[in-house]
């Protein structure tokens, strides 16, 4: 497959933009449309673009860890957030919250186990999507 120079350069430029956008979407999703699922897909799309432009080997190098490890990590984080609610709150997935803090730019930050669960979803979805895309592209080659 001949590589397109334009696609390759654009993908490299879009990757950081998409990753930042995915994090914003993830954080916003707590009270507004967005969240871990769509955030994970956006992050995966950044690496998928690089895989289309420069091949999966380049995308895997940039990702540093294996997509399957992302999935395993995400599942552990999500399950851990549920168990935390059971141990400290008496019910699986009970929401536990840290005190509100003020951070410039972000405003009032309210961290808790639901957001931790969402982070697990983000990692699992990103890992799953990349695993599927990379496998399909590598099977084709």
């Amino acid at each position, binding site marked *: 497959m001949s590589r397109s120079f334009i696609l390759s350069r654009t993908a490299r430029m879009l990757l950081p933009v998409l990753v930042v956008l995915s994090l914003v979407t993830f954080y916003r999703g707590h009270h507004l449309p967005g969240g871990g699922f769509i955030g994970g897909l956006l992050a995966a799309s950044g690496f998928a673009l690089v895989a289309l432009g420069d091949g999966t080997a380049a995308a895997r190098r940039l990702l540093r860890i294996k997509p399957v490890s992302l*999935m*395993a990590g995400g*599942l552990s984080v999500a*399950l851990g957030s549920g168990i935390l*609610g059971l141990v400290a*709150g008496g*019910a699986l997935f009970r929401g536990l919250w840290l005190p509100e803090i003020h951070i410039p730019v972000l405003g009032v930050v309210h961290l808790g186990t639901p957001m931790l669960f969402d982070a697990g979803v983000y990692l699992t979805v990103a890992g799953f999507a990349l695993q599927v895309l990379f496998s399909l592209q590598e099977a084709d080659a």
Partner: protein
Amino acid sequence: MSDAGLLFLQLIVPAATATVCMIARGSARVQHSIGVMGAAVALAAAAALLLRVDSVGVLAAQAGGWAAPFGITIVADRLAAGMVLISALVGLAVAVYSLRDLRDGALHWEFFPLFHLLLLGVQGSFLTGDLFNLYVWFEVMLVASFVLLTLGNRASQLEGALKYVMLNIVASALFLVGAGLIYGKLGTLNMADIAVKLQDPQEAALLHTSGVLLLAAFGLKAGLFPLFFWLPASYHTPRVAVSAVFAGLLTKVGVYALMRAYTLFFAAKFADLQALLLWVAAATMVTGVLGAAAHFEIRRILSFHIVSQIGYMVLGLALMTPLALAGAIFYLGHHIIVKTNLFFVGGIVEHLRGTGELSKLGGLYKHAPWLAALFFIPAFSLGGIPPLSGFWAKLAVIKAGLEAQAWAVTSIALLVGVLTLFSMTKIWAEAFWKRQPDDHKPPPRPVGARRKLIPLVLPSAVFASLTIVIGLAGGPLFAFAMRASAQLLDPQGYIEAVLRAGGGAP
């Protein structure tokens, strides 16, 4: 441990095992031992739950601490706890059985994470008290089973999986629409809350559509006539360990959902559907057994028998007397053990001879008399020969049918029992008794083959002894089934437990 903790543990153990198996994918030895150990822990937790439920009654806990009907309730009565225990038992047996396939490289590291994810879906379906949550657990099972079906990447597997996927997606869509209509009408998805609201006949008036949609969705999962055809089209294609767990558990989740529906949240609608359900049960029994008679490959024959046996369970449900329901529950438990074991034995035959085609098999009785014994016990239990477990299961359902004076359906059930025995003797005569055909010499046995068979034979032998124990000590188990059936027929205790259960300490 608190009761809520005990309930949640049934879900945490398979979820954690799946995750750890995924993390430990690099080392086969570590992953396999965690996969088997997780199944053993799940079995111990399930046994503790059943003992607790049988002594103190229905247990309920609210996920996230949100009170019913707003949150998702996890609830266990005797039927649910019994199903959880038997599923955990099948889980452990299949985990051990799969070790041989895994060591030979016929399965990959994906097996254990997906297998425990499948068990998570099964246990969740049994324990949930929320209709939409039941849909989610069905999807968890489905996602795991899609991949498990195709592990191995053979063309026949892809063909089987395609039929399985298409029809199960249709069932999911029907389920979702049915549940959506209920939510639109009643404003709740909590099963106990739906049951309370439907006690008002005015509320129950406009729910025929969702009643039929849910019947179709659960019926397709259970493999009822005329929606069963995906099952024999796909169950003989995957690895034996996979088809054994599918055959044992997945259709039974559909039967369980039907039981839950018509004794709890759709109890008010049951009278309209009783006649339909009776004839569907009869048609399921007959078509399943005729399909089995027409096939000549071990796992295909066994797949059709799943369909026909589902008919007996639904017959028990459709009669809806205390004895009939107890018979259906006893049948469920007996059938899970026997059917899983028959697939185990079919798998051992395929390992020894390299095929499951009856025309290419023969002489197994002479070469492996122990295997003949392992086959004989579950096969004749399935046919209903006393004193094996299947005899008592059939006896209870048929006695209930006679008491309810459902003559036609009961005689069909008796006739199907005879035909079941016929196709079991067909496997017996072809694979075990007749001489090995000269043009199909069995592959020579490699050195050390005997020791490699241990993970295959051990679960099968344990299940065969269980079949005998259930047969000989049927009394206490049937008494348990009667208690479970009494609990189902008087759902007030279940409803109160769900609606009163607190969210636990804040």
